[in-house]
C-alpha cells in the first residue's frame, strides 16, 4: 500500500492520538471475479455510501467483533475489464479489503482488493504543497544541514497545529496557558473564543492567541455553556502539548510575573 502517511517529529508525536481517529480517503483498484457491466456496478457502489457492518479480518490487531463504520462517499472512476477503479472516503478503521469483498458479494461474482493508495489521512492530503517522498526528505534535510536557511525546513515540515484542524477548538488567554501546561482543567474565565457545535464529551484542541496548540482536551460543557458560564471547569485535559514555562505562571490574583512571597 502506498500513499499519505503522516509523520510526527519529536514532541509533535503527542498529537498522534488526535489523527488516528480521523477520516481517510483512498483510491482503490477492485478486481472482480466475473464480468459485470458498468451500469450494474455504479448503483451497487452507491449502496455502500452508508453506515456499514464490518468485522476486522483474521490478521488484525483489534478485537474481532462486529462493528459499524461510515463510508462518507464512494466515487466510481473507471472500469477496465474486470478492474474497477474507485475513490472512497471513510471513517478511520474501515477495512477497504472487506469493503471490496462485500461489494463483490452483492454483485454476485465476488471481488478482491487489488491495489490501494491512501490519498487523505485527516487533514493530510495528497495535493498539499508540502507532501514529500522519502527522497525529498533526504534531499531537503541535506539542503538544510548545508545551508542552514530556515525557509528550507518549511518546504517539507509543517507545524503540528495543521494536523489538528479537524478538531473543534477553544482559544484561551495568555494567563490561562501555563496552568493548562501543568495539567489543570480549563476554567470559564480563561476562555476567549469557542467553535460552534461542541458537545459535552467532545475532544477538542486548546490554542493560544498566537495559534499555538496548548493541549488536547475533553469538553465538560457545550459551546453555548462555555460562552455563558462565568465560573467552573469547561474542559478536562487529555494531553498537554506545550512545554511548561513557555508562558509565565500566573498566580491567583491574575497578575503576570507577580513574585510568590
Amino acid at each position: 500500500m502506498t500513499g499519505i502517511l503522516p509523520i510526527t517529529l519529536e514532541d509533535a508525536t503527542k498529537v498522534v492520538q488526535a489523527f488516528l481517529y480521523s477520516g481517510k480517503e483512498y483510491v482503490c483498484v477492485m478486481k472482480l471475479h466475473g464480468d459485470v457491466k458498468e451500469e450494474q456496478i455504479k448503483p451497487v457502489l452507491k449502496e455502500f455510501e452508508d453506515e456499514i457492518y464490518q468485522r476486522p479480518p483474521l490478521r488484525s490487531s483489534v478485537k474481532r467483533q462486529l462493528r459499524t463504520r461510515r463510508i462518507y462517499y464512494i466515487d466510481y472512476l473507471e472500469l477496465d475489464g474486470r478492474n474497477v477503479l474507485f475513490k472512497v472516503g471513510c471513517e478511520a478503521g474501515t477495512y477497504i479489503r472487506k469493503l471490496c469483498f462485500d461489494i463483490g458479494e452483492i454483485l454476485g461474482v465476488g471481488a478482491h482488493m487489488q491495489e490501494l493508495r491512501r490519498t487523505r489521512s485527516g487533514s493530510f492530503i495528497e495535493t498539499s504543497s508540502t507532501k514529500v517522498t522519502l527522497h525529498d526528505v533526504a534531499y531537503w534535510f541535506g539542503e538544510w544541514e548545508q545551508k542552514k536557511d530556515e525557509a528550507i525546513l518549511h518546504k517539507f515540515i509543517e507545524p503540528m497545529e495543521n494536523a489538528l484542524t479537524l478538531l473543534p477548538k477553544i482559544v484561551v488567554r495568555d494567563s490561562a496557558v501555563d496552568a493548562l501546561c501543568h495539567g489543570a482543567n480549563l476554567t470559564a474565565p480563561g476562555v476567549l473564543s469557542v467553535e460552534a457545535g461542541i458537545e459535552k464529551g467532545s475532544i477538542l484542541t486548546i490554542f493560544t492567541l498566537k495559534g499555538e496548540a496548548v493541549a488536547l482536551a475533553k469538553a465538560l460543557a457545550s459551546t453555548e455553556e462555555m460562552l455563558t458560564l462565568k465560573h467552573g471547569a469547561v474542559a478536562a485535559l487529555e494531553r498537554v502539548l506545550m512545554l511548561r514555562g513557555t508562558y509565565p505562571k500566573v498566580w491567583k490574583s491574575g497578575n503576570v510575573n507577580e513574585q510568590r512571597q
Partner: protein
Amino acid sequence: MPRIIPPWEIKRELLTKAEDTTNPKYGHRPSERPAKEYIQYGTINLDKPAGPTSHEVAAWVKKIMHLNNIGHGGTLEA
C-alpha cells in the same frame, strides 16, 4: 440515506466570548518558530512508497533527521 458529511467538510464558526491581547515576549506563532522548535513540533506529510512497512519508513526518517522521537498516524500495509 442522506449523504454523511466527511469531517473535513464540516465548517465550524468561531464564536467570541471575550477579547484579549497576547504578549509577544512569550511563545511563537507556529510558522515563526525558530528552527530547532520548528522541527520539535513539526509533522511531515509523507507519500509512502510500496515495500517498507510504515514503521520502517518512520524509523528511516528518524535516522536521517537525527531525531530522538518519531511517530506516525495510521499504519499503511507494506
